């Protein structure tokens, strides 16, 4: 034994936990400052343990149900991440398409270049395609926001 630590401290702790004191250990504790200190502090913590005994954790079936609900939410959130990514990509595509093609189309019309796309039918086709892309992006964004709302609620 040193002044601060005693090799028999684990025995003191084990005796306090089990309530069974090996022969000679109590005499040792009475003579050993380190073990006496350990005993006093450990006793206090045991009293705290006894005092908190009636505070039972929640029943296992309730915790299990909550964990299952959280796991499902996590799975849904992970699955919808790819949909969110698709929404962003669709929106980026629509913006890039509009920014790239409309000025070009405008210039061609100004130059009276009679290419198939600058004709009435071609222009209508392009505008329809732009409308379809924008509509698709809006649908994805709407679905994404509704899914997020359901998850949060």
């Amino acid at each position: 034994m040193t002044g601060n630590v005693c090799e028999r401290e684990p025995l003191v702790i084990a005796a306090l936990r089990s309530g069974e004191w090996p022969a000679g250990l109590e005499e040792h504790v009475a003579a050993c400052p380190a073990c006496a200190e350990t005993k006093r502090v450990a006793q206090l913590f045991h009293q705290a343990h006894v005092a908190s005994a009636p505070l039972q954790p929640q029943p296992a079936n309730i915790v299990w149900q909550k964990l299952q609900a959280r796991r499902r939410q996590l799975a849904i959130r992970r699955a919808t991440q790819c949909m969110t990514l698709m929404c962003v990509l669709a929106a980026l595509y629509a913006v890039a398409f509009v920014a790239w093609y409309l000025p070009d189309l405008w210039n061609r019309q100004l130059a009276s270049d009679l290419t198939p796309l600058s004709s009435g039918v071609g222009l209508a086709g392009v505008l329809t395609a732009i409308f379809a892309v924008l509509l698709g992006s809006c649908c994805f964004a709407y679905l994404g926001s509704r899914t997020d709302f359901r998850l949060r609620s």
Partner: protein
Amino acid sequence: MEAILHFAELAGRSVLGAAIAPVAAGREASSMDEQSFHSLYAATARPIHSYVVAVTGSRDTADDVLQETYFRFLTRRAAAMPLEEARPYLFRIASNLLRDRWRSRREEQWPENFEQQHCADLNAQLDIRRIMQALKPKERLLLWLAYVEGMTHTEIAAATGLTALSVRPLLFRARRKAAALLQPEGKNQ
């Protein structure tokens, strides 16, 4: 427009369902069934709950931490872990969660209003409250694991993330501090 959105929603649901199914199936395969969970919970929940109550002084916090502990256990580890390995691992998760709470919210102080109605000795009840309030969370944690759970220094190191070498002096200082706080009553006895 409504019809289009309805169609899109239906399509989205089927896409969502198809995407979730493999994720959920994979998780179910790597996780434990309800019966195994009940067995694990019965063997480990009570000591972990007591530990968190003692360290935080709050039953609500203990319930939250306990639930989060099992959630992380189920999502990170397979069900095949034996109980003797699961128990320290659960303590480790709970300790990490407590540390995260202290870092983010500074919930270090043991509450004044903690109820210990079932402590028969009034002096002991006052001692517990006084000392728990005076000790730092890490000190409460170390002393609880050592004296109530009966963990060795190596086990405490595994449960707290400290090194085994640092547990010994930290535990000694915590014990000294608690004993010094107990000293006046000790002399009176």
